[in-house]
């Protein structure tokens, strides 16, 4: 019989991040509270002629600063390398040994699992485009596969190809940590890492693991990724002012800013955390997931799926909407998302909607796609810890239709006991996680 929920309480005992605002938690957090932007001209590839020429890149990152054996990860895609750095930080904080066959932390590796929302590795574009160029006859519109193969077989590299697979970041993390519990990877677009953290919470609750390394890793700052988003007209084109381009909930918002990174939390059963004497950072109390089942291209106009996921998370947490202090928004800075998300918040929080504090850190960090929810959940935990909510920066021209308290431009000092992280992905994927200040 498939196990029933055992209702183990699930707490966070470690966090790590590699993102456009820094390669560790405190650097990222200080940058965020200072209202800094991680957005600049794209340097990973030559985007100078694209409709959008900027993005939020992770800069000067070297996985060798985090591990003794960087060779094991040298072929890893950007997401995998970011994930390794973030996981080392998180495990260090939680007291979990990495890179050893004989861990001294006393934790059975079969009881440690991994759940990532992770994306693809970038294609080798020289080979990918080069092979097409070699094989395609533009007069006849026919591909000569012999010519295609001649280029592809020489220029495509075996390990680089393998590392494009979406399960590779999780593979690197199991090698890094020795984790032998449930290992999963999902890719539900922009909602992936929130979903991963939610499902990882459930894995511990039902007793399938004591510890889950959960979060996301992704980089779509590559020519095909940007091509795709540009064609969908989802990206901001504010090329003359990249740092103010991500401006969620404003009247002049014109799209999101592509970012990249990895964010990892160590989830642990309260029993295990107490037994090990681990420092508890916060508790995950609720998770809700739904799908719009509406259109491939658009969110449901009334936010039906978003509302359902938020309400499911609130019910799962055994609280009411009145108990939530802070909503860390999906807040992408696209016309559609910010407007529908606002509607959904109003529907869920009813008479309290205008009192609820809502902010989008995508204004600073950009949109980490598969890794976004994980990074944003971490900031919820920090908001609870420090009693301060990060701002929505670049909020200079309110959209009259969007009239919630979006914490404009300046972080807000306030006690946060219960924070809600919501993520909405292309295709109508809605995932919500609720995190609470830990009390015995």
């Amino acid at each position, binding site marked *: *019989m*498939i*196990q*029933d929920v055992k209702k183990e309480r699930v707490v966070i005992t470690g966090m790590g991040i590699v993102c456009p605002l820094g390669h560790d938690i405190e650097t990222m957090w200080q940058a965020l509270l200072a209202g800094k932007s991680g957005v600049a001209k794209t340097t990973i590839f*030559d985007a100078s*002629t694209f*409709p959008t020429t900027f993005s939020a890149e992770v800069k000067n990152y070297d996985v060798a600063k985090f591990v003794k054996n960087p060779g094991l990860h040298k072929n890893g895609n950007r997401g995998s390398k970011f994930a390794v750095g973030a996981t080392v930080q998180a495990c260090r904080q939680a007291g979990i040994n990495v890179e050893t066959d004989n861990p001294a932390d006393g934790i059975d590796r079969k009881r440690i*699992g*991994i759940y990532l929302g992770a994306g693809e590795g970038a294609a080798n574009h*020289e080979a*990918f*485009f080069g092979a*097409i*160029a070699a094989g*395609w006859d*533009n007069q006849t*519109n026919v*591909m000569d*596969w*012999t010519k*295609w*193969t*001649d280029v*592809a*077989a020489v220029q*495509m590299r075996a390990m680089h190809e*393998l590392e494009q*697979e*979406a*399960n*590779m970041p*999780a*593979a690197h993390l*199991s*090698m890094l940590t020795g984790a*032998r519990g*449930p*290992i*999963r*990877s*999902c*890719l539900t677009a922009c909602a992936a890492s929130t979903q991963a953290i939610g*499902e990882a919470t459930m894995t511990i*609750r039902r007793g399938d693991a004591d510890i889950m390394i959960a979060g996301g890793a992704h980089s779509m700052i590559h*020519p095909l990724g940007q*091509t*795709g988003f*540009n*064609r*969908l*007209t989802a990206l901001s084109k504010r090329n003359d002012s990249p740092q103010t381009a991500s401006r969620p909930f404003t009247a002049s918002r014109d799209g999101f800013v592509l970012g990249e990174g990895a964010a990892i939390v160590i989830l642990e059963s309260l029993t295990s955390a107490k037994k090990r004497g681990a420092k508890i950072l916060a508790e995950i109390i609720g998770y809700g*997931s*739904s*799908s719009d*089942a*509406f259109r491939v*291209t658009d969110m449901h106009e009334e936010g039906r799926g978003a509302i*359902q996921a938020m309400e499911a998370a609130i019910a799962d947490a055994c609280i009411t909407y009145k108990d939530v202090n802070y909503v860390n928004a999906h807040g992408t800075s696209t016309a559609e998302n910010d407007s529908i998300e606002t509607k959904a918040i109003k529907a869920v929080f009813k008479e309290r909607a205008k009192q609820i504090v809502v902010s989008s850190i995508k204004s600073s960090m950009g949109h980490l796609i598969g890794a976004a929810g994980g990074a944003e959940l971490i900031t919820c935990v920090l908001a609870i810890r420090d009693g301060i909510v990060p701002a929505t920066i670049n909020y200079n021209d309110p959209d009259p239709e969007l009239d919630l308290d979006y914490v404009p431009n300046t972080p807000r000092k306030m006690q946060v006991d219960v924070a809600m992280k919501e993520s909405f992905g*292309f295709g*109508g994927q809605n995932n919500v996680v609720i995190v609470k200040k830990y009390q015995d």
Partner: protein
Amino acid sequence: MGRTRVVITGIGAVSPLGLTAGRTWEGLCAGKSGIKRITKFDPAKFTCQLAGEVEEYKIQQYVPKSFRKATKMMSKDIELAVIAADEAVRDSSLITKAIDEQKINVNPQRMAINLGAGLISCDPCELAPAVAKSLTDGKFDIKKWGKEGIELVTPLWLLKYLPNMLACHVGIIHDIQGPSNTITCAEVSGHIAIAEAAEVIARGNSDIALAGGAESKVNPVLIMRQCLIKRTTNQHNDDAEGACRPFDSDASGSIFGDGSGIVVLENLDNATKRGAKIYAEIVGTGQSACINPAYEHIEPDGYGLTIAIEKAMAQANISPKDIDLIIPHGTGIPQDDLAEAKGIEAAIGEETKRIPVWPTKSMLSNTGAACGGLDVVAAVLAMRDGIIPAAKNCVKKAVGCNLNIVKETIKTNIRYALCCGYTYGGQTAAVILKKFEN
């Protein structure tokens, strides 16, 4: 919360052996192989020129009229999922929006979906006109691409290639509004998706779930990838039928293909209440990872698979003595087959000699994220009919493989069947099915 049992009430499959679960099962029973020379593109210069392609179909036949426009946005992976989902839903007698909008007998908010998907690789021909526009002196020029080439890429192009679009299209067609997830653990995605969907039902988040996986591996980029990683056989280009030889001493690599396997999972109370036909119960699942620095293969002793099987047996509360059938991953890659054989043997011990092991990829090919769904469908039908068909192409077992590979068709009552899988990168999973008993 009470104890929740999760049962299978519908099955659907698309495979190189046919466009339905029934046709696929017939082919498996007859020992047919769906592996042939690749027709989708000219493979003459590929080291492996074989694949499991599915026969022609008209996708419009599988979607309601109101959704036909959306078929333009479907990559092959999405189409395969849509077809198998259509069959599974019809087989379950559930009436979703797609079946009959006037007689819907499900609550959309209580339906979940969880599909395994590959990272959908784009069609080089689709991008070719844009690439052709972006050449300077015959070489690809990213500056031209960004300015001119990009304009020739169809606006919704990206949406064809996001892995979660399988679940999204199927979800829209059948109006599935509950939890939706897309597992991307390569060749073990389907197993994991089924396990997770069962968990979603067990914890009360939904009453019904569509689960399984679909993938189209017959794409020049993906086949080239597998050739370069040296996971394909390059010795059988003139012998398609004998090409994929799981656990055989002459095995030399895998053959990749297109497929989809999707099941309807249901809370037992829900299924009983509506008088549904019940195929089997999901009684145990387990998951772990192989850890191997050369991560294109699993570790030599397959320990990660052993852990997954042991966990699944513990959850099902059974011992190896209870298992009547094992469907392994069995890719035909000698090193991985041997590791898998060792991993399974370590989990089932002395029962290794007895338990029939039936690899399917010699006939179905390696369909990536679809493998788990197809194997579960095959196990369900084996259980229904009390038949374990003969394994194909395992003439002489590889040295070191002690598994009891099914030599000839067996007629027997199957109470418990184990489907297990792994992938490059190391993730492993096991799913145990039990013949339904009240």
